[in-house]
């Protein structure tokens, strides 16, 4: 147990770093311009409207405006159902580009702020890592829309690279580099007790320098206490591990590791490895690709609420099977893949142990990020990526997308 030593009081918390130099100074000017002028108030007949119109006076509103003023919003990069994305830059450093994601008020969701937005903001506020998209700031605009100031990632996502087999060539060293970045991102999430719960290639965005960043924390949650159930209805179906397909409500970081394994497989064969068109089908395909989950290879599996497998039991696939399909990874690479695809989540490798695996040290060395293959003309793509809401934009891939949360365990 760590005894947290002296934490110095960050007197800067509101003042220094976030540069709210003197709230009072601003207040004075705000006053004369709005409520200090009695006329403005009298013109508006309704008192509530007057308050709505009055410019910032509260400290809270001033702080928000300070954040807002730090950025300049530029052209629209994309428009979606859930959010519009704009290019922006830092007011005091125009060379520093950002993406400003303005979340729209959703008419259909009548319970206030949408849970996705809450989850995304909550976790991105806390996680700061080179392989996780950076959220520089959040502010609200006058019309009560949320604006997330995110890192500008102009080179599209990993899915675009994987599936553009005509124009993009990459090899084992590139795969190793990308996987290294993904694994570090997932390790960092787990180290901070956050489950991502939607890892897949199109949530892996690429920065200008080639660095891969894990994005979309709309399904993320903190690790649960042992007695508190979680929903099993998470992770896009093709990347969903067997325990979730069987309805497990107490699970761990192992769910993300399974998804990471499937991203690795997809990087090699350049098509989704286990692409079921229903949950039952997904389970069948897992049985064929990996083996049938039984009490022998996974004690307790038959007790899971939705355990159903075909009568015919397919034995666990051996190393030869994987070598035939994924041989380009080499013996160690295949070993790592197999460990991520362990049926029993207790035996599945952890993100931490993945980072300690031998594969990273074997030849070929991972490609330096500046030398990684890039999609040309990706400028316009960032808009599409950031505003996207799976299952809407990409109709053709809709079948694999299962982005909904079960509110069942709620009250």
């Amino acid at each position: 147990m760590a005894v947290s030593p002296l934490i110095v009081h960050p007197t800067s918390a509101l003042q220094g770093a976030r540069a709210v130099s003197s709230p009072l100074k601003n207040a004075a000017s705000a006053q004369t311009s709005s409520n200090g002028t009695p006329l403005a108030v009298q013109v508006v007949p309704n008192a509530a409207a007057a308050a709505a119109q009055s410019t910032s006076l509260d400290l809270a509103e001033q702080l928000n405006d300070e954040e807002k003023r730090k950025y300049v919003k530029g052209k629209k990069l994309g428009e979606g159902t859930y959010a519009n994305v704009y290019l922006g830059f830092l007011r005091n450093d125009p060379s520093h580009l950002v993406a400003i994601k303005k979340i729209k008020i959703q008419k259909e969701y009548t319970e206030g702020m949408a849970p996705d937005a809450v989850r995304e903001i909550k976790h991105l506020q806390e996680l700061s890592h080179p392989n996780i998209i950076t959220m520089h700031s959040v502010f609200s605009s006058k019309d009560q829309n949320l604006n997330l100031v995110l890192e500008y990632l102009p080179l599209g996502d990993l899915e675009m690279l994987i599936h553009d087999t005509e124009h993009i060539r990459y090899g084992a060293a590139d795969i190793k580099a990308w996987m290294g970045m993904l694994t570090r991102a997932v390790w960092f999430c787990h180290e901070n007790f956050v489950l991502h719960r939607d890892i897949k290639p199109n949530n892996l965005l690429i920065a200008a320098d080639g660095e891969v960043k894990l994005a979309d924390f709309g399904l993320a949650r903190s690790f649960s206490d042992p007695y508190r159930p979680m929903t099993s209805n998470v992770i896009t179906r093709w990347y969903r591990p067997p325990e979730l397909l069987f309805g497990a409500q107490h699970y761990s970081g192992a769910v993300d590791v399974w998804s990471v394994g499937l991203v690795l497989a997809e990087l090699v064969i350049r098509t989704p490895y286990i692409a079921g068109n229903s949950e039952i089908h997904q389970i069948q395909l897992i049985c064929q690709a990996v083996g049938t989950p039984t009490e022998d290879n996974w004690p307790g599996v038959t007790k899971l609420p939705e355990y159903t497998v075909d009568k015919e039991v397919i034995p666990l696939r051996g190393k030869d099977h994987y070598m035939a399909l994924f041989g380009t990874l080499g013996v160690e690479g295949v070993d790592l893949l197999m460990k991520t695809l362990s049926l029993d989540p207790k035996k599945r490798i952890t993100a931490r142990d993945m980072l300690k695996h031998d594969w990273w040290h074997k030849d070929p060395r991972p490609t330096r990020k500046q030398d990684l293959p890039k999609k040309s003309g990706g400028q316009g793509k960032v808009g599409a990526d950031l505003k996207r809401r799976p299952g809407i934009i990409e109709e053709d891939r809709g079948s694999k997308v299962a982005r909904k949360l079960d509110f069942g365990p709620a009250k």
Partner: protein
Amino acid sequence: MATEDARYRQSSQYRLWSFSPSHLQSLREKTNSLAISHISNRLRASSPPVDPLPDFLTPADEALLLNFYIVDLLRAAQFCDLPTEIQATAAIFFRRFYLTNSLMTYPPRALTMTCIFFACKAEGLYYRLQKFADKFPGTTGEEVLAAEFVLCQGLRFAFDVRHPYRALEGAIMELRRLGDFDESRLARAHQRTRDVLKLSPLLTDAYFHYTPSQIMFGALSMADEGLLQRLLRDAFAGKSESAKNQVLDVIQSCRAMLEKEPPERRTSYWDGSGSKETMKPLNKKLRKCRDPDRVDLVALQKARREQALQKAKAKTTTREESDIFGASNGKIEDEEREAKRRRVVGGGDLLGPPL
């Protein structure tokens, strides 16, 4: 320095919501004086002007009332059978909100409900709005939501609150592992510390000044100083005495703060014997000096929405005008958007978005 400390410094709790005592005090004074000048101007400007201006709450008044409402909030959260952590998150949200907003500006009773509801959301427990509102007769869902946005802004969009509860479980496990104490002593200390943590840090500024582990140790020290000493001896084995004493000093100052609101205070607050009577004049004072424009949050929210809509309408009109000179892209986009929206509804994908 330990990497765990470095990591804590990345948290929004440290970056945005930790202050030195003097800084905290000055923030409260600013918030109070801003509210007073705002409300005074507003009252003078109304027709007919309010002549003698009412007596305003002082920062000290606000502090007293704040705790009164937090106790109220905890009671309501308990009534909803919410887990300890969510209760605490709601209380801390409330405390943070009223650091940069005055009680005179936004009505605390309404914010109590909003904080509880939003804390559930922030902790991933999806309480249905209607079900939640039904728990409290006389409260509508609309009222609960009216202040949600204002709350989020007041929280500076930091929705993650680090609590000391799990730290306590860890410390007790550690003590068991050391094996120097009998189980009954540990169980007693465990229980007592938990009781302290459920109330004292929420009614004091502990979360603004100390880390979760410091708060936990401060509470443990209240329950059983010997256990704290034993843990520190272990943690600082092989390190200098001064390093240990430095930490101990912080823990003791945290303890001193927690002791101002010991768990026993809960009953005295709840009986209302002392508190309600002391609070009566303050609540009366508040009723007279609050911001007349923001008493009715539902109406305020409606006005804000309408304003936003009008702004948006004005925008589309100009766009349509400009479309006269070209293809009406705007309309097509809108139709597409509508179609997408319908699909969203049809697919049951109500929740939301990715990046």
